[in-house]
């Protein structure tokens, strides 16, 4: 299972980075989203993979931490997902405004001379 997930993370990150280095703003925004999936999964996987053990405890019982998934990376990733949405929105608006101002969707605001 670890192997599958790590290959998945690698492919998401690679696709994200490829798009990040492209000249069109839309490519960059998709790239950033893919990269953030990869990073979120990566951080999440730092708590190791556990099946059928969500960090939801039973009130009033003795708690054995080993029987639960690590809640800390989950808490980190949860806020990261929401903030990720916000930054995507901000970037989208910036790229729309830039396109409106410059008339091009190139990341530099002008077509590069090849």
């Amino acid at each position: 299972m670890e192997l599958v997930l790590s290959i998945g993370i690698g492919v998401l990150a690679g696709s994200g980075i490829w798009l990040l280095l492209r000249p069109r703003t839309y490519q960059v925004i998709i790239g950033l989203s893919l990269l953030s999936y990869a990073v979120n999964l990566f951080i999440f996987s730092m708590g190791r993979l556990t099946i059928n053990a969500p960090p939801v405890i039973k009130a009033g019982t003795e708690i054995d931490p080993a029987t639960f998934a690590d809640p800390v990376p989950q808490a980190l990733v949860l806020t990261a997902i929401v903030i990720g949405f916000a930054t995507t929105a901000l970037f989208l608006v910036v790229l729309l405004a830039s396109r409106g101002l410059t008339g091009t969707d190139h990341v530099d605001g002008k077509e590069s001379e090849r």
Partner: protein
Amino acid sequence: MNDENLLLLLILIPFIGSALAAIVPVNARNAEAWLSGSVAIVAFAIAAYLYLSVADGGVVRYTLEWLPEHGLNFMLRLDGFAWMFSMLITGIGFLVVLYARYYMSPKDPVPRFFSFLLAFMGAMQGMVISGNLILLVIFWELTSIFSFLLIGYWHHNAAARDGARMALIITGIGGLCLLVGLLIIGHIVGSYDLDVVLAAGDKIREDDLYVPALLLILMGALTKSAQFPFHFWLPNAMAAPTPVSAYLHSATMVKAGVFLLARLWPVLSGTEEWFFIVGLAGMSTLLLGAYFAIFQQDLKGLLAYSTISHLGLITTLLSLGSPLAAVAAIFHMMNHATFKASLFMAAGIIDHEAGTRDMRKLSGLFSFMPITATLAMVASAAMAGVPLLNGFLSKEMFFSEALEEHSDSILDGVLPYVATIASAFAVTYSVRFIHTVFFGPKPTGLSREPHEPPHWMRLPIEFLVLACLIVGTIPSLTIGPYLHTAVISVLGERTPEYSLAVWHGINTPLIMSVTALAGGVLLYLVLRNYLTRCEDGPPGVRNFKGQRIFERLLVTISWRWPLWMEECFGTYRLQPQLWLVVFIAFIAGLWPFLTTDLNLGLPTLDGIDPAFATIWAIGIVCATGAAYQAKYHRLAALILMGGVGLVTCITFVWFSAPDLAVTQLLVEIVTTVLILLGLRWLPKRLEETDDSTTLIAHMRRYRDFSLAVVCGGGMAIIAYVMMTSPLPETIADFFLQRAYAEGGGTNVVNVILVDFRGFDTFGEITVLGIVALTVFALLRRFRPASDSVETPEQQRIQNAFDDDHPDRKVGETVYNYLMVPSVIMQWMFPFIVLLAAYLFLRGHDLPGGGFAAGIAMAIGFLLQYLAGGTQWVEDRLRILPLRWIALGLILAAFTGMGSWLFGFPFLTSHFQYLDVPLIGKVPIASALFFDLGVFSLVVGATALILIALAHQSIRSHRVRTTEAVKAEEDA
């Protein structure tokens, strides 16, 4: 009022006066002068009153704790020496204010002038009475800043701007060095308290860090006092209004350097390094300043170089390390302040009344302004060191000290000759000043007829010249006790016997004086003809100007080098920058593999669930597909990206993270809608059919592709290594064990978010709110590109259909489009609200929570927009996202602050069981209210972003209709 508070007032009054002066109307010259004059005279009175406490070695202290743990306190300390300076600052300050009232033209914006002048007075006052070294540097830098503002007062004048900038850079760099030097002293002594430092002289001189500290402190002192080779800023500072030159650049601020040297004299002096560095700087300044002064054609330039030379004299005296020399130095600080301030004022009057300061144009003014001329003559005589004037006394002391042997070196050996020659030069330029300006033929070619100034303008000069005379004739009766007070506060037990008598009999110093007087006059007679027609500046080194070197240096450092660096390393293009960032990240990720010995076992295929592997196969296809299609098929790329999001979501479910899965799913929905809304404004892009890409572009793609592959591979390896290595003890145990006991919730992730790490969450929702507001603000001024303004093709076809059928109204088809889903979506609204409430309420104990509930709620609103269109929704429902945001932040903040009422830190949570009728016992945690704040903010922020973007369609629609109407009218 006791002395300590008076001490504080001494600083506060000028600063308060400065603030008041700034708000007086621009043309109120008299009100300004009255205000500033009163400030100065009150401060003067306070300083004078404090003499009672500092006479005979007393010290007044005032301490206000500031950062006691770092040894930084707001400490004021007034002793005899500081008192002497306070008197000079406030006294001459008052005279300068009086003078400036008549000097400044009614056209000048005087509030600015007087405000800066008073602020400078406060800063200078603070500098001399600082009892803490760091505080001293702060006031020191303040004087530099106000000096900058005052030199640049006439900022329409390029010379004023350049002079101000140069003064600021030179003294500012010096001040920075001084700060470091004093920090070293504080490090050596272990305290910044001036009293402690003054008592630790031996310790400082023996320390290894003595030389660096000394060099840095001297950088500060020598730049401030315009000593060679930093002297050139002072002549350029003469672009300031003359009252400023009289006050800052002769009497007070330039004295700050020598003040500091004298202040730290007991601690730093007496070593060889001190003598050689300070002595060399002092003597060369003394001689060169006097030499340069002779050849100046500008009256103020002559006085500026003379000031430099006299400051060099004081520096030389301080370098000698003998107590008697220190007495002479302190005495000369006072004397120079009096005669030089009066001379500057006289020069200002000449400039004011004759319209020029050029000595080639001025002559024979005695008959026009006899009183001013007489005053200037007396003051010049004091500057030249003529007997029966104060300048003579300190110069005699200097000569007798110059003759004493201080160390066995050439520098000490040549001192008597340097002193005599420089003194002769001083006589030459003094005689030249008087003779050229006031005698000879009547001036020709002046723009106006010169005459005596108003009496009040001359009064300050009269007063100062009288002081020169009185001190010069009966020194021990007048200045004696005050000088003694100043001297003992610096020298303490080492205070020597000295005599202030006018006549010491015929001795070597007197012979030197006579030689200098005779030699100086003779030199003038020789040079006279040359001086009336020569260019500005001394012969031989006329073209060798410190100013020019400084400017070249400045241009090189601040313009050429940055330009060159930008050419070499800079780019305006984003792609290379991002490439570099990713590359550096790759190297950083690679580093641990290279430096540590990681044991990478071969991956095994055991225990892989085929279903999971299949899901990820789909995920991988989606990701690569999105990467491939993002350029020409945006919608496809978006859908594929959504696929990746779903795979991520399933992964979260699979590995026991239900909270993440819920949030991811909901965020996925809003992100997709968001980007869909954005797609509307992006340009059409058709797949390129011709192969126009160049080789370089191909190479670039290969390069990017390889970087992407190695980075992705690296990520995969790191992730695999991390996941398969055993988990060390983490803080997770802490949270799991206390989630219920201390946070009152069983969903540990939620408890961490709203309770244990509530402050982080508070920060995060604040960021979310800020981002939403930024998006909103950016979109308010949004102007789409011209090719995106048109209505989308589908709507055009639908509207055309309406046009063709007379029984249909225009827009009806668009409105009825997808009617069935719309109705379903409208009906869904209450259920989504219910779902949001459900997610919210269960959040503390089961997967859900404020974030997920907030996004669910926002989706509810969003669906209404999708179903009915913007106008339809807003006719029926007012969402007011800004209020949701505000409410959320306020709720979260107040919940956090609530714990203050019970004496706990911010965001300490509390929970208990509450008996609710019908429902029974329910747990209520204060974190619930915090989570409600999170919920409200997330609803507001998400809705604001999406609605703002959705609004762009109807807004540009409006623009278009007005344009259409216009076109019709034109037709």
